[in-house]
């Protein structure tokens, strides 16, 4: 599953999924048919957000193996690794995460062709999904092939709809979950309803898809499915955040992760405050005056050493003027009068040469300061800083 996982995650090209998914599906199915994986692993990412729905992740595991318990609608977070894989691969995709009924059964259908088809369909969904009835994220349509513009998402099952399906049908179904979302079926909580829906399907596919969720008594209306798609998206965003915040990836549990994120943001904000105080302290002449022109003007404001209102100047002038206008990314440079900073006036030719060449470099003003410094060490320092940044 390693390679499959790697290939899927993070790729931004839904079209590329097809083969990957098909392959991994086959792969997984083989593994699963051999081994009954223990369904205990509850991936944090998947499980955590079900908390939002109040559905413990473990419940989902049961779903596939029992008949119609009354499970909470919505999130069947898949504790199984394959479920997670599905979500990872398909759920992270930009446009419409495929909300598979995560609890992909460990016993995959043995028919590779069916499996492949299911995969294909689900991937297609992202590309051809017509407008959804539900308000949620775009649900990938299952049926790409004989594409009906209507909502014939469910491939009808000729028979055995109402029976406790063979596991393989469940899996087909679960994989074909996406379109189920579109099967506008508030009433599809019974097998009979499923039959109706299936009967309504106008495509002639004979794949034995079954509206598993309907049979189980789960809510299959567009709302819960849309919600699930939404949650997938949120899940994905949260994972990105986890990667951004150091040390967050190991934490399990939404609340704790959020705590970490909040702490990180707060600490960064505090650092900004602390650093600005440090900057103020390091040189008493650093100040920003005329901030209102700063805040509204396009061109950077200037800080003057003696607190006068700043005037925006053309950056090209800066070499001849002890003033810097900088609207770029970095903190607008405080203008420091060179004569004041250095006891002796030094020729700044070395630096003014460089200056205009890097009008937006962070260290320009720094450079101008350094220009007066005969000590090579400081020069070196600023050079290093320059390259660093």
């Amino acid at each position: 599953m390693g390679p499959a996982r790697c290939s899927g995650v993070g790729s931004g090209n839904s079209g590329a999924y097809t083969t990957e998914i098909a392959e991994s599906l086959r792969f997984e199915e083989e593994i699963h048919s051999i081994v009954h994986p223990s369904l205990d692993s509850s991936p944090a990412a998947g499980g955590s957000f079900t908390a939002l729905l109040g559905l413990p992740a473990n419940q989902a595991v049961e779903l596939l193996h029992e008949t119609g318990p009354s499970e909470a609608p919505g999130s069947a977070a898949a504790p199984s690794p394959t479920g997670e894989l599905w979500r990872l691969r398909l759920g992270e995709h930009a446009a419409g995460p495929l909300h598979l009924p995560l609890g992909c059964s460990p016993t995959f259908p043995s028919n590779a062709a069916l499996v492949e088809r299911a995969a294909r369909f689900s991937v297609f969904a992202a590309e051809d999904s017509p407008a959804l009835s539900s308000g949620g994220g775009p649900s990938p349509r299952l049926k790409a092939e004989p594409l009906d513009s209507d909502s014939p998402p469910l491939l009808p099952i000729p028979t055995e709809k109402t029976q406790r399906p063979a596991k393989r049908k469940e899996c087909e179904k679960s994989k074909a979950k996406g379109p189920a979302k579109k099967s506008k079926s508030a009433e599809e909580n019974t097998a009979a309803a499923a039959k109706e829906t299936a009967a309504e399907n106008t495509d002639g596919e004979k794949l034995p898809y079954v509206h598993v969720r309907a049979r189980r008594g789960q809510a299959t209306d567009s709302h819960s499915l849309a919600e699930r798609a939404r949650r997938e998206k949120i899940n994905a965003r949260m994972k990105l955040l986890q990667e951004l915040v150091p040390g967050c990836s190991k934490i399990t549990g939404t609340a704790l992760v959020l705590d970490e994120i909040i702490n990180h943001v707060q600490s960064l904000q505090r650092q900004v405050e602390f650093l600005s105080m440090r900057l103020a302290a390091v040189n008493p002449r650093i100040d920003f005056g005329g901030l209102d022109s700063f805040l509204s003007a396009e061109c950077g404001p200037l800080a003057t050493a003696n607190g006068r209102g700043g005037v925006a100047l053309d950056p090209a002038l800066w070499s001849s003027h002890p003033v810097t206008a900088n609207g770029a990314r970095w903190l607008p440079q405080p203008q420091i009068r060179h004569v004041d900073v250095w006891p002796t006036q030094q020729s700044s030719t070395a630096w003014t040469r460089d200056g205009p060449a890097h009008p937006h470099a962070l260290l320009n003003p720094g450079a101008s300061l350094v220009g007066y410094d005969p000590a090579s060490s400081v020069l070196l320092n600023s050079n290093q800083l320059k390259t660093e940044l």
Partner: protein
Amino acid sequence: NASLAERSQRIKMAAEMGLVRSSRGRHWSRALGRRLLQREGITGCGCKNAALSTSSNVFEDLGVREIEDEAAEIGTRVRALQRLVPGGEELGLERLFEETADYIEALQGQVSAMRAMSCLLDGLEREKRMMGK
């Protein structure tokens, strides 16, 4: 000569403006810019309130009481995060996380820039002092 507090306040505002400028177009950036403009208008120069509030507890007033309910737990944290990220209070969960990620990146950039700058200036000061003696 202005006081340290005043100057550091102004520098901080400038830093925040740098944040805004560097991430134009982002929802949080626009919100922060608006806040700064307001703040600047109100305070002129020298009031204590900063656009980036650094109150230690974002959870206060949120009524953090139910610890048992997991969903509520998460809810309070989400609300706290909304307060932290400029413009976050009007965002849904998904957008909030997006903005938070971008905001964190921008903050990190700003912090490292300011750190580098203060190091540089610090070094210069030291050199200057050495030279002066």
